[in-house]
């Protein structure tokens, strides 16, 4: 075998390393915690400017008393049909209100922030959008931040923003449809239901599944022993595209 070789070539693509740990231990019972839910999945109010689907580091403010019927998705990274059916599949706002009523969690923040993480500009999310969302949540006295990823690069953006929140002293979990990305990008805690991107918080209109995913993610915020640990959740949904 004779091969023409060439000395001096260099690999052209860098393989990422997991960033340094960030971890805030939860010190209160869940029933006393103020919870916020952020998402990189492109959810916004119908009255707001849609996201730019090829990359957008801006965010939208959503009051938690916004009816779910006034929310929609603008995202190019996955099949939108599940969210069109039920926005709770990405941003489970109705389930969160039910958990407050049930007493499972203490309260919700007045408002939360959503973004479209697909193709997200890493530096912008890390240095501008992330810290700003974290600061605004912290100012509302939030203890726990839950976050859904969305698409592939969304999981990266979601993880960056979640790390900012964790660094501000809140305990966070990324509910990941693509757990390898959340792990590699250094999410503080990860839960991984078996769901497709586009229905990261569970099957549309499947209340029991959505509730279980949020509850067990909250419990993982409480129980996760250390940074970057993942819990696989036993819920499976196949989106028949």
């Amino acid at each position, binding site marked *: *075998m004779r091969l023409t070789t060439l*000395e001096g*070539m*260099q690999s052209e693509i860098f393989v990422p390393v997991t960033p340094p740990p960030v971890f805030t231990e939860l010190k209160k019972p869940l029933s006393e915690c103020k919870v916020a839910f952020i998402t990189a999945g492109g959810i916004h109010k119908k009255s707001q400017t849609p996201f730019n689907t090829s990359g957008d580091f801006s965010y939208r403010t959503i009051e938690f008393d916004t009816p779910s019927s006034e929310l929609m998705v603008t995202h190019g*990274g996955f099949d939108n049909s599940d969210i069109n059916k039920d926005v709770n599949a990405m941003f489970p706002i109705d389930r969160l209100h039910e958990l407050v009523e049930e007493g499972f969690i203490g309260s919700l923040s007045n408002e939360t922030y959503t973004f479209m993480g697909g*193709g997200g500009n890493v530096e912008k999310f890390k240095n501008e959008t992330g810290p700003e969302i974290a600061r605004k949540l912290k100012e509302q006295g939030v203890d726990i931040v839950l976050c859904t990823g969305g698409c592939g690069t969304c*999981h*990266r953006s979601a993880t960056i923003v979640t790390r900012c929140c964790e660094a501000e002293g809140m305990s966070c979990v990324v509910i990941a449809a693509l757990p390898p990305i959340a792990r590699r990008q250094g999410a503080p805690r990860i839960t991984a239901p078996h769901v497709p991107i586009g229905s990261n918080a569970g099957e549309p209109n499947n209340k029991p599944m959505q509730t279980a995913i949020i509850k067990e993610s909250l419990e993982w915020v409480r129980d996760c022993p250390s940074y970057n640990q993942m819990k696989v959740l036993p819920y499976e949904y196949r989106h028949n*595209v």
Partner: protein
Amino acid sequence: MSITQETLKMHLKDPAIFCCRREKGLVISAADLEDPSLFDDMVDAGLLTLSDEGLTIEQVLGATLLCDVEALTPITRSVLDKVNEIEKESPKKESAVTAPTEKAIKTVTGGNGMLHIEIGHAEKLEGLSIDVPLFSGTPALDAAPAVEDEKKTTGDKKVIRTLKKQHIKIKDVEIGTETSIKDGKITIDGSIVEKAILEDELCKSMKLDVIHPNERHQYTETIMDVCPIATKVEGELGSGITKVADGVVFMLTGVDEDGVQVHEFGSSEGYLDEKMYFGHPGCADENDIIIRCHVVIQRLSGMTRPGPFSAHKCQDYVIQAVRNELKKYDGEIVREEICEDVRRPGNPRVVLVKEIMGQGAMHDNVICPTEPCGILGGQKNVDCGNVPIILTPNQVRDGSIHALTCIGPATKEMTRHYIREPLVEGLAADSEMDLVGVVFVGSPQVNDEKLWVSERLGSLLESLDIDGCIITTEGFGNNHIDFIQHIGQAGKRGIPVVGVSFCAYQGQLVVGNEYATAMVEENMDKGGFENNVAGCSCVTKEVAARAIQMLKNKMAGVEIAPAPKKWNNDVINANNKLLCLPETVLLDNGTLH
């Protein structure tokens, strides 16, 4: 934390940084330096700022400090009494190296009835040589030196099948009243659109027009696909004779009933001359006449599977009418392209793995239709469970893939890309290798399925008994999970592997593993972004040449230096220069950085 002599040896060319404060008069040794493998984290954490003026470890060893220097500060020329001048290596030389066919451990059965074991390079056993009796009492053995047989195979070319592509010159196109090809001119019956949209109820209307090369500065809706006109006149896909219309392509554009662009991750509507990278494999060429087929599909169906598919299907009805005319047309053959499925036994066995999108809603492809680049008769990779499917190089070159393309415009591989894929062409033509086949593997939507599919690919690679592979992916983001997983499947089986993708800035890898060490970048955007210019950042001839060379290096054990920590187009151009390829000039499209 200081470093050991062994760590030192691995990092001679890395920056020299003091681990703790060091005082004037110190003679620098390993014990004074910080471990370079920690620099990434330190830079991220803001503990360390590397400087261009900083010296490397090999430059500072043994030098004496002229003043006190703080911990985690780059060591520069100004603080030392001397700097070790390291001879610049001359990496420019191209050398034909015979790859080591001699294995480290060699066993030969000789005539003396002894089994001779010689271990060439093992740390503690260097030079060890043992003779063990092979059969006690039977010294004269019919020692057939079977091991020697492999030397006889020399990579002689064995042609399995031939495909003849006849390129027929087309000089003009017009929309008229009857579909025909006469004297190099295609006429398409304008009323055909009425029948075409009956092919799928989600397709609400269709419009055809012709864009000549001098009419490019005009508005276009998002470019869904570029599709050649090619048709079988003899044999099946991959063999026989195919006629290809030269100088003309179809371009599919689409919106839904509400005017929403049928696009995915980023959209390419705008002025055509600014929104397509003319001349790239998936695109129209500079002098091509473009037949634009614009469709309107049912509202809200754009981001589902059936909606965009209806557009492709209805366009194919129109293309088929032209194909039927092309079959009959006896025009001037400007070029006859002979494609051969060849095997070169004895050469290193390689496969090309092409990861294609399989998440549905424009993340899908039609595989092996009846007509080149067609729709009918094909199967969608999503419906096939995205499992790896192996095609011959000729099948690929005969239009086996109709791309229902999606992702970003710049990073998607359109239908035309596959019929003239530079890696397929490059590997098939390379007389030093034996291209076993081209594997298409879909990228599913669910993480578990990604891993499942990747494991199937791993088993396939193992059973093909290959010596090396190149793995490419279109797009970026979630599909990089599969991409890295595929590289791992090859890597953990000891198969040399080269990865090819758009990553740059926006698409930088979200996951990684230790096998992703020979990687080729497709980006051609100045900011390193998906810039919405159709076909901009895809496999080009230059990308293919770099990937093939890296694979040869890897198979022959010639080092490929690790990638720098951040995307840097200079690295790509340094590789281009080594291979005497033109510079990769980045398109300035105003993308943020």
